[in-house]
């Protein structure tokens, strides 16, 4: 098995629900928001159907913050990236693999959980489809932002809380276009969301890799 595949297998094993670091907590959190929202605004079916898509987007963004604490910090602390560096696996490659594993461990299950969440909010089939397409286009970008911020805050004490705060402004463009797709009849907003995601995914391994190298100088 090539080293990159071995690393992907390990990262998936750690991050997937059932792995040593993975959990279903972000998903339960996501569903809990969708469940609480009707209690908070009342059983007005029209209001729920009109605002529910946006609520799902906010819930997805907040759920994406939860796994960040353990995404990178543990491996910086226990020297895994040092050992990989000695084996010729650059920080950039390690981060690209971590990004793929993070997205795989988080996004597909979130898309599945969107179906019960949409049912709880009484969304129409058309709206649910738009939300799903938007999340499919936007979650790679959310994962990329999360990885960059997790790598930047990995060497800091109490970095996790800061990471949560840093992700929110960086994720705003994804939220604006992803949730904005709900208000438009065509798919241009979803395409823009996908474009933002692509840019973020392209930058993330380099930014996160540089952050890990810089953390060695502390």
């Amino acid at each position, binding site marked *: 098995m090539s080293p990159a595949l071995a690393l992907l297998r390990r990262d998936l094993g750690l991050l997937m629900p059932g792995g*040593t670091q993975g959990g279903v907590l972000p998903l339960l959190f996501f569903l809990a928001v969708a469940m609480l929202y009707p209690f908070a605004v009342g059983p007005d079916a029209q209001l729920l159907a009109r605002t529910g898509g946006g609520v799902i987007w906010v819930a997805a963004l907040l759920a994406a913050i939860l796994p960040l604490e353990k995404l990178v910090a543990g491996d910086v602390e226990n020297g895994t990236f*040092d050992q990989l*560096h000695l084996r010729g696996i650059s920080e950039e490659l390690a981060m690209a693999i971590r990004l793929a594993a993070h997205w795989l461990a988080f996004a597909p299950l979130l898309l599945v959980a969107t179906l019960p969440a949409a049912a709880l909010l009484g969304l129409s089939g058309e709206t649910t489809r738009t939300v799903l397409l938007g999340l499919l286009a936007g979650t790679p970008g959310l994962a990329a932002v999360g990885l960059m911020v997790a790598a930047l805050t990995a060497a800091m004490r109490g970095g996790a809380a800061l990471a949560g705060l840093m992700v929110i402004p960086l994720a705003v463009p994804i939220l604006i276009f992803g949730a904005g797709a709900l208000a438009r009849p065509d798919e241009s907003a979803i395409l823009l969301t996908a474009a933002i995601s692509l840019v973020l995914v392209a930058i993330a391994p380099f930014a996160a890799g540089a952050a890990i190298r810089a953390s060695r100088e502390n």
Partner: protein
Amino acid sequence: MQAQLIANDIACRRGERLLFKGLSLGCAPGDALQVTGSNGVGKSSLIRILAGLLKPFSGEVSTTGAMGLIDETLALDANQPLGKALAFWERIDGCRDPSRALEVLQLEELLDVPVRFLSTGQKKRAAFARLLNRNCPIWLLDEPLNGLDTQAQKSVESLVALHCSGGGIAVVASHQAMALPDAETLAIEDFAA
């Protein structure tokens, strides 16, 4: 290509402090180098510079051959059983048969134990198992005797001696005296800035 490790006139700065300067060393196959010095003079920093993990403030390091590092970090997932955690590095290093290293370091009975339950000495032995399975010519060891009992210290000393007699290079930073045949000593205090 024969393994070698050369550092030329390197200086190390941590924060605002210059730890050492003008330090040069050269290791050829079979060489063992013991780096000595009291706490905080830069032994660990020197090892990390040689490993390419830290940039020297000035000077340069050139190495030929793969390097293996043992330092105070373990790089094994604390929640996984030892066998599974080591298996990841065996796959990365392309090691087919880890059994000899496990036998030498007496780790066979610990393979099912989660890494977080291992004692300090057992963790150090696990790090040595990974180093042996990597099968690389240059060993960089930072305080390799920490936490080991007398018997394990002896077996580590003989592992390093065996490695060097087989044409390997070992650089050992330790505040404890380590019995290494024909080892040269480098006192970092001589290069203090």
